[in-house]
C-alpha cells in the first residue's frame, strides 16, 4: 500500500447548533486524484478547512506522511505542502500574470530590486508548461477565467505543493480549458503530487479521479475506488440513498396526486440559456401542477428558478406567463405577471432582518396595499393576519423582528410574502431545507394545498423523497441542461438517479 500523504482520523468539528463533521476519516495517497463529493451541508468545505488549517478540529488527528501534525493557521498548512485553489480565484487581479505567479518569490538583483527581465522569462517558462501561451506582462484580470485558474494552479504547485485541493475548478471554464486543466492534473499525478478534487460533475469525476469519498450530513457515506462504483450508485450515495435498497415508504406529508388540469401552461420557460450555468433549459408549469426540478448541486436548478423569476440575466430564451412574454431580468415584472420566487438562501436573499414579521410579509405587495403612495395599515393588517393564521406563523406578534424567529417560521414568512403578491406560480427553492421536522411537514402540506387551489408550483429539492412524493412531474437537470423529464409512474427515486447518472452527451 502506498504511503498516505495526508490523513485525517476521526475528525469531528462542531459549530453552535450544528455538528459539521462527525468522526470523519479521510486518507489521501501519493499521486492520487481523490474526489470529495456531497451535497450542500455535507461537510466538504469544513473538512477542507480542517485539512488546510483554517479550522482546528474538536476531535481527531491529522497525519502528514504518517506523522501527527497540527496546523495553527493556513500558512502552516501551506508550508507543509498543502495548497488550495478556491472556487473564486484568489489572486491580485490588477497585477500582471508574472507578478501573480511569482508573488513573494520574485527573482531579485543584489540590491533587492525585482529583476523584471528574469521575472518575465521565468513566468513564461512556467506557463508554457501549463499550455498557456500569452503575454505574461498582461494584468491578470484581462485574461480568461481558464488562464487565471491555471495561474492559480501553477502558483499552488510551484510553492512545492505535495497536495493540491481544487474546489469546483471547472465551474467557470470552457470545455477546451477543462481539457488543459485535466492534462495538467495528469502531469501532477505522474509527479507524485496528490489532488483532492471537489466537483459535482460526474463526467469529470469519472474522467480523472482514482478514488472517491462521499460525505453526507457530516459523516463518511462511502469511501473507495471510483472505478468500482457505478454512476447511479454514486448519485444515490450523494443524495443520501442506500444504493442497494431504496425505501419506498412515504415519510413526507404529500398526499401525492393533484388533479392537474391539462390546460395551457401558466408559466413557460423556453430555451433559457446563460453561459456557462444554463443551456437551453425549457420548463413549463400548468395550473394545479407541482413540477419538481431534480439534479445534483450545481446542475442549474436555482439558476433556472432565478431566470424564470427575472433575477438572473439570461443570454437567450424567453419566459411567458399565460401566453404573455415577461420582460427579461426584472423581478418586478415577473411578480406583476404572477411569478414569485422563494429563494434558497433565506438569510442572504430572503428575509430583511431589521424589519418585523409584518413588514417582511407585506414587502413585495406594498403597491397593492396602498393608495397614492401611502400604505394602508388596515389592509396590511388584514393580509398579514390572514397569512400568519393560515401558515401558522409562530411569532410573539406581527411586530416581532423576523430575525428572532426560527428557520421554519422565517420560511413561512417568505412563503406568505410570495402569496401576498397574489402569485399564480410559486418557485420554491429548497423550501424545507434547514427547518425542523414539524415545520417541514407543514410546508409540504401547504404546497399540496396551494396546488389543489390551482397554483402552479416549481419545486426544487435535494431531498429525493420530497421530490418524488411532492411533484407530479420532474425535470432533471445535469450540468446546466435538461437531462430528462419524468411524469406519472415514472417519477421514482431510481428513475431520477438514473437520469442524473446517465452519461451526458459530450459537450463541445
Amino acid at each position, binding site marked *: 500500500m502506498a504511503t498516505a500523504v495526508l490523513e485525517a482520523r476521526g475528525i469531528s468539528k462542531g459549530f453552535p447548533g450544528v455538528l459539521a463533521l462527525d468522526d470523519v476519516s479521510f486518507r489521501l495517497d501519493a499521486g492520487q486524484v481523490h474526489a470529495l463529493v456531497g451535497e450542500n451541508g455535507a461537510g466538504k468545505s469544513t473538512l477542507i478547512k480542517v485539512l488546510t488549517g483554517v479550522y482546528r478540529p474538536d476531535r481527531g488527528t491529522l497525519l502528514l506522511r504518517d506523522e501527527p501534525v497540527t496546523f495553527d493557521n493556513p500558512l502552516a498548512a501551506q508550508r507543509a505542502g498543502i495548497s488550495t485553489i478556491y472556487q473564486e480565484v484568489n489572486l491580485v487581479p490588477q497585477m500582471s500574470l508574472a507578478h501573480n505567479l511569482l508573488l513573494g518569490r520574485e527573482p531579485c538583483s543584489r540590491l533587492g530590486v525585482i529583476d523584471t527581465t528574469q521575472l518575465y522569462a521565468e513566468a513564461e517558462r512556467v506557463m508554457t508548461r501549463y499550455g498557456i501561451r500569452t503575454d505574461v506582462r498582461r494584468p491578470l484580470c484581462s485574461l480568461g477565467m481558464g488562464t487565471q485558474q491555471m495561474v492559480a494552479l501553477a502558483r499552488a504547485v510551484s510553492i512545492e505543493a505535495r497536495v493540491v485541493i481544487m474546489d469546483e475548478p471547472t465551474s467557470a471554464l470552457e470545455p477546451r480549458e477543462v481539457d488543459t486543466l485535466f492534462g495538467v492534473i495528469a502531469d501532477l499525478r505522474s509527479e507524485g503530487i496528490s489532488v483532492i478534487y471537489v466537483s459535482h460533475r460526474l463526467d469529470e469525476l469519472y474522467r480523472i479521479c482514482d478514488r472517491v469519498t462521499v460525505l453526507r450530513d457530516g459523516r463518511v457515506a462511502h469511501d473507495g475506488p471510483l472505478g468500482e462504483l457505478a454512476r447511479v450508485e454514486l448519485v444515490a450515495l450523494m443524495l443520501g440513498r442506500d444504493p442497494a435498497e431504496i425505501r419506498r415508504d412515504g415519510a413526507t406529508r404529500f398526499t401525492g396526486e393533484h388533479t392537474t388540469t391539462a390546460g395551457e401552461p401558466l408559466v413557460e420557460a423556453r430555451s433559457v440559456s446563460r453561459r456557462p450555468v444554463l443551456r437551453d433549459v425549457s420548463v413549463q408549469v400548468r395550473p394545479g401542477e407541482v413540477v419538481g426540478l431534480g439534479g445534483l448541486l450545481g446542475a442549474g436548478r436555482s439558476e433556472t428558478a432565478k431566470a424564470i423569476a427575472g433575477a438572473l440575466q439570461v443570454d437567450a430564451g424567453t419566459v411567458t406567463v399565460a401566453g404573455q412574454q415577461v420582460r427579461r431580468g426584472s423581478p418586478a415584472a415577473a411578480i406583476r405577471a404572477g411569478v414569485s420566487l422563494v429563494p434558497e438562501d433565506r438569510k442572504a*436573499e430572503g428575509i430583511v432582518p431589521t424589519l418585523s414579521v409584518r413588514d417582511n410579509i407585506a414587502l413585495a405587495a406594498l403597491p397593492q396595499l*396602498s393608495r397614492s403612495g401611502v400604505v394602508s395599515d388596515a389592509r396590511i393588517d388584514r393580509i398579514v393576519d390572514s397569512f400568519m393564521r393560515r401558515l401558522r406563523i409562530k411569532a410573539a406578534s406581527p411586530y416581532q423582528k423576523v430575525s428572532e424567529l426560527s428557520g421554519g417560521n422565517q420560511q413561512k414568512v417568505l412563503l406568505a410574502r410570495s402569496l401576498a403578491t397574489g402569485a399564480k406560480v410559486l418557485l420554491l427553492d429548497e423550501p424545507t431545507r434547514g427547518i425542523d421536522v414539524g415545520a417541514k411537514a407543514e410546508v409540504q402540506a401547504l404546497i399540496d394545498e396551494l396546488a389543489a387551489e390551482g397554483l402552479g408550483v416549481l419545486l426544487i429539492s435535494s431531498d429525493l423523497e420530497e421530490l418524488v412524493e411532492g411533484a407530479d412531474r420532474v425535470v432533471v437537470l445535469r450540468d446546466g441542461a435538461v437531462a430528462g423529464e419524468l411524469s406519472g409512474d415514472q417519477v421514482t427515486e431510481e428513475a431520477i438517479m438514473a437520469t442524473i447518472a446517465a452519461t451526458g452527451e459530450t459537450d463541445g
Partner: protein
Amino acid sequence: MAELAAAPRVWGGRARLLAWLQEYGVYASVLALLLFNVVFTPHFLEVANFRTQLIQVAPVVITSLGMALVIGTEGIDLSVGAVMALASAMVVLYLGYGAPVAIVAALIAGAAAGAAGGALVAHVGVQPIVATLALLVGVRGVANVLVPQLTEFRNPTLITLGSRSVLGLPLVVIVAAVLTVLVAFLIKRTIFGRQLVAVGGNRAASRLSGLPVRRVLVTVYVISGLLAAVAGVLATSRLQASDPTSLGLLMELSAITAVVVGGTPLTGGRVRVLGTVMGALLIQLLQATLIKHNLPQSWTQMVQAVIILAAVYAARGRRA
C-alpha cells in the same frame, strides 16, 4: 448541516442595558443635560436662551433628517455641507428675480447635486462614501465659483424668513419641525419609506421581491440634497449674507453624529427620525452647556467623541 431552529435569545444584563441605551439613550441624555442646566446654569430657563438654541440647531436637524434616510439605506452623504453652500450661492445669484425664484433655484440645485450622487451610487455602483466625497469637493468648488466672496443682501422677504416668528416660534424652527413630521410620515406610512428601509436591510432580498432598488436609492440622495439646500437657504437668510467658503463647513460630520447618536444603525435597515432630532439637540445642548460654563470649544469636541463612541458601542453590543 441542518441549521437548527434559532435558539431563543437569552440576553445578559449587559446586553439588555446596551439595547436599552441604543433605544432610549439619546432621550435620557438630553433629559439629563436639561436637568443639569436647569440646576447649574444661570438664566438657562429664559425664553431667549431657548430660542437661540432652537434657531441654531434647526439647520443641523434638517440636514440630519436627510442623512438619516441615506444611512437607512446603508449609505452615507458627505456632500450635505457643500450642498448648503451651493444653495446659499444660488440664493444670492437669483435674488434679482425675487426671493421665491431664488429659493426654488437653490432647492433645484440641491436636488440636482443629490441626483448626481444617487446616480453614481445606484447606477454606476460607486460606493456612497466615495461618490459623495467627490461631490463634497466638487460642489463647494462650484459654489465658490458662482459666489467668490461674502455677499450681503437686503431682500426683505428673505430676511423675514430668517428672523420672523409665528406664534412666538421662529419660522426657521417651524420649518424644521414640519420637515421632521414629514420625514417621519415618509418613513412610517409611505411605500417609499417602507422600501427604503428594506433596501437598507437586505438589498438582494429587496431586488428579488421586485422593489425598485435603484429608484429608491436615487430618490434618497435627492431628498438628502433637497433638505441640505433647505438648511442652506435658512442659514443664509439668518446671516443676511452668502458665504460659500464657510457655510455648512463640516456639517456632514454634525449630521452623521446626530444620526448615529440618535440610534440609527450605520448598517442600514432602520431609520429613527425622532432619535435623529434628539441627537442633534444633544450635541447642541452639550455645546451650549460647556460654553456657558466657560469651558473651551476643544472640550465640546472631546465630549462629542465620547458620545459617538458610546452610541456606536451600544449599537455593536446590540448586534453581537
